[in-house]
């Protein structure tokens, strides 16, 4: 009984602390507010079911972001036999950005920046947003995206160069 109570308290704390950053992470990956909302619920309910398997308390953030990132990837490629190409995915997300109820279209600079991010490959975009917005270390990012810290460092560098180029155009 004590274990169940402890689990409930831990999870409640986890939801309070991480639901907002997780939502924004998902929103940057899928753009649509409705999809990000559904994926946030999916992520946290999965976390609730698997919370007993979490061994290191210090790894909670990376663990949650990993569940969320995988949920977002699955969502973007759902009902497809082959994963979308970078260009197809980018076009789909840019369309979403143009036609969403919950986007401020007044600030052109912010829109252009997001558009540039959306032209990156799935992996680059994830690495870039985790580093730029969530300020994760390359080691933590590597655990989220199942890669090495060096690969993530290179991906971030390339993403930055690409965004800079696009913003100058």
């Amino acid at each position, binding site marked *: 009984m004590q274990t169940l109570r402890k689990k409930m308290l831990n999870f409640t704390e986890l*939801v309070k602390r991480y639901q907002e950053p997780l939502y924004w992470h998902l929103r940057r990956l899928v753009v649509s507010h409705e999809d990000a909302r559904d994926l946030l619920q999916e992520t946290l309910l999965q976390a609730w079911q698997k919370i007993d398997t979490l061994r290191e308390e210090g790894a909670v953030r990376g663990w949650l972001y990993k569940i969320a990132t995988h949920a977002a990837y699955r969502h973007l490629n759902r009902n497809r036999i082959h994963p979308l190409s970078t260009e197809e995915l980018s076009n789909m997300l840019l369309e979403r950005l143009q036609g969403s109820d*919950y986007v401020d279209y007044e600030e052109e600079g912010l829109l252009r920046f997001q558009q540039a991010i959306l032209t990156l490959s799935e992996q680059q975009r994830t690495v870039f947003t985790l580093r730029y917005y969530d300020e994760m270390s390359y080691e933590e990012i590597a655990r989220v995206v199942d890669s090495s810290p060096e690969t993530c460092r290179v991906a971030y560098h390339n993403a930055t160069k690409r965004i800079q180029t696009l913003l100058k155009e």
Partner: protein
Amino acid sequence: MEKEFNKVGRRMPYRVPEGFFEAQEKEILAKSVGSKTRFHRWWVGGVAAAACLMVGLFGLHSADEPTFAPTALYGYTEQMNDEELTTWVEFYEADIFLSDATTNMDITFNNYNL
């Protein structure tokens, strides 16, 4: 990096409906922790109800049986003369429902060494 994109910073053009995060928190906790609490309440309630039912069926029934039928019946039949008792037994034996009851009563009669 901060310097390179400092005009934008970490701001985004995305926004959420008012009260979104508060509503989400409630919904997620209701679907996770809340469902566990509801299940726990249901489980405890179910066990308590089952325990009450068991006590009702076995505990009370077995407590009532020796006191109700024999003492009342013993007092009643004791006052009858032989003729009345024979009529009474014949009447009750003819009734399938009551004869069931008298079968049970025989056991209690035995207990009273009648």
